[in-house]
């Protein structure tokens, strides 16, 4: 038992260290967001004067004139739309790749991987020019399209791995039972691949939610600017004060949805959903 206790202590300390390392910056941001502008630079972890002014300032001016509310709505809408499209397309593509033997399959997979690894910075210049000439600059589709380019390969990869785990017999059983290929996919494969679908969805959503590069380059106003880009345009109460508190408050607010999102779906990301399908 002694050894067990020591091991337990060892792991506890290690986990605490890792947690502290990961959580300190987050807590620091939370602390900053609750400080008054004068005490932002005082260096103390616990604010001397607690205030919610930074949060209130974000929502002043409402949807049309405020610095934050419209970008927040944009962020949510663009991330959700991109995720929905990416997952729908990826589900079909991944299913075909996992199940069918067709010419060019390896090329597609290799191509997807290559695109996912492509440095985004090298595409923003051409995109900026193209979007301006075809009218996609500063629009939702103007952001959604490049997001799909980079998130689809990721989603396809995740889903292919999950689909491959599902016994092929299930699908054939469904076909013999009278299902069309689409019914077999919808009623048997898709429910079983749910954990994979949610995993892919979370990854895609976070990718779109976090993006700064495309958002700052391809938008010019709050009508389609997302929060990460909007933060860069925050101004302080006067020309000479940095909007540190407001940025911190906005950062806290956009972190919360991600945490909620992951909390909701992590329960569904459980292994063993296919237990009992076939004798193992």
């Amino acid at each position: 038992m002694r050894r067990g206790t020591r091991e337990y202590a060892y792991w506890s300390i290690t986990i605490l260290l890792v947690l502290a390392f990961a959580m300190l910056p987050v807590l620091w941001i939370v602390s900053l967001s609750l400080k008054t502008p004068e005490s932002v630079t005082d260096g103390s972890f616990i604010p001397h004067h607690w205030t919610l002014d930074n949060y209130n300032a974000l929502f002043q001016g409402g949807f049309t004139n405020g610095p934050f509310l419209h970008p927040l709505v944009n962020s949510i809408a663009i991330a959700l739309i991109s995720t929905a499209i990416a997952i729908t397309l990826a589900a079909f593509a991944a299913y075909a790749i996992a199940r069918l033997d067709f010419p060019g399959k390896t090329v597609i997979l290799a191509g997807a991987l290559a695109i996912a690894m492509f440095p985004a910075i090298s595409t923003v210049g051409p995109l900026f020019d193209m979007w301006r000439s075809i009218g996609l600059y500063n629009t939702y589709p103007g952001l959604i399209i490049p997001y799909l380019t980079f998130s689809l390969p990721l989603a396809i990869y995740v889903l292919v791995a999950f689909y491959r785990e599902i016994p092929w017999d299930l699908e054939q059983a469904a076909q013999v039972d009278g299902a069309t290929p689409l019914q077999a996919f919808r009623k048997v494969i898709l429910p079983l691949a749910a954990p994979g679908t949610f995993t892919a969805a979370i990854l895609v959503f976070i990718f779109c939610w976090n993006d700064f590069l495309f958002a700052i380059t391809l938008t010019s106003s709050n009508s389609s600017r997302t929060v990460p880009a909007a933060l860069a345009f925050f101004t302080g109460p006067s020309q000479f004060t940095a909007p540190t508190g407001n940025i911190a408050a906005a950062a806290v607010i956009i972190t919360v949805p991600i945490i909620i999102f992951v909390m909701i779906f992590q329960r569904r990301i459980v292994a063993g959903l296919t237990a009992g399908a076939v004798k193992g």
Partner: protein
Amino acid sequence: MAEIVLDRISKRFEDGFEAVKGMDLDIADGEFMILVGPSGCGKSTALRMIAGLEDITDGELRIGDRVVNQVAPRDRDIAMVFQNYALYPHMTVRENMAFPLKLAGASKEEIDGKVSEAARILDLGQHLDRKPANLSGGQRQRVAMGRAIVRDPKAFLMDEPLSNLDAKLRVQMRTEVARIQSRLGTTTVYVTHDQTEAMTLGDRVAVMRAGVLQQVGAPAELYGNPVNLFVAGFIGSPAMNFMPGRLDGETVHLPMGDVRLAGDARERAAGAQSGQHVIAGIRPESFEDASLVSGDVRDRGFSFRTKIDLVESLGAEKYAYFQVEESAVESEELRELAEDAGTAEVPGAQEGQVVARLESASRVERGEEAELWLDTSKLHFFDPENGRSLAAG
């Protein structure tokens, strides 16, 4: 219900491997047909072609007068039980069984009625709302059966449905399958590698080897008149003993001595020329402890003395093993059988070892000499060149 006709069916895979070669098989309406053979003989591929899960390279497949080569599985009106059951894990037992009916657009009352009926037949009533993960192997197997029978299809296809069960449950379910099939009277094609299942379940049995159909017939016919070495060695447990011999009129020279043929054995040697070398096949049950055979019967057979190497007592019967000399029988088919049984690498397993199945009252002892009796009407003869039976015609 319908008959299923395989007309010169072939399957060649993309890598060029020919799994099924020109298979002809007529399965009558309501018949229980067994496809049996060692692993890799093409029996599962044949079944999957009937199901529509595998394309047919060549030949014609008809289910109830309709050519179905190009018909999708869902339009063939067949139900299949998979080796690993393939239950839908996210659905309850009830939903699993209702799935084919729902897809067919049946009304709710009809679905409820048929599912409860199937559950009653299969004794699944109290498990209807459980998920497959919480069921035992036998229960899962029954759900898979249930999903097949609710639809009242033209035919059942079963791909080694019992091979994942433990031995005791397998025997139980075997009876169950036979009971359900005879009750529903649905045409059934059943694939197995277990010759016991084949013998006990089928109206007729089709033995396959390397993609080629060897013999089709009632179990008793396969047992009594195997057309070649392969069928002879595959059907029956313990397997038939093979030894070299030479036919000389109505006498055969066997390693144990010269045996005069009697009864059916004469007909089985009718296709041989006098003086021809043959492979003689003797079923273990054709032997008996000579002391247990009464006088007049004893005179009709052949008695010989041999040293018993090993005795296995199973309670109801005893297996006695002994050696015969100069008995290395060379045959491609026998080698394949040995490989499938896993005895190919066991030294001495096939070389001249003979097993005799004796009554439990027999007093033979390991290492002692004993007198055995052989029923000379039960010998089989095969051509050493091609392995075919030497029976006339």
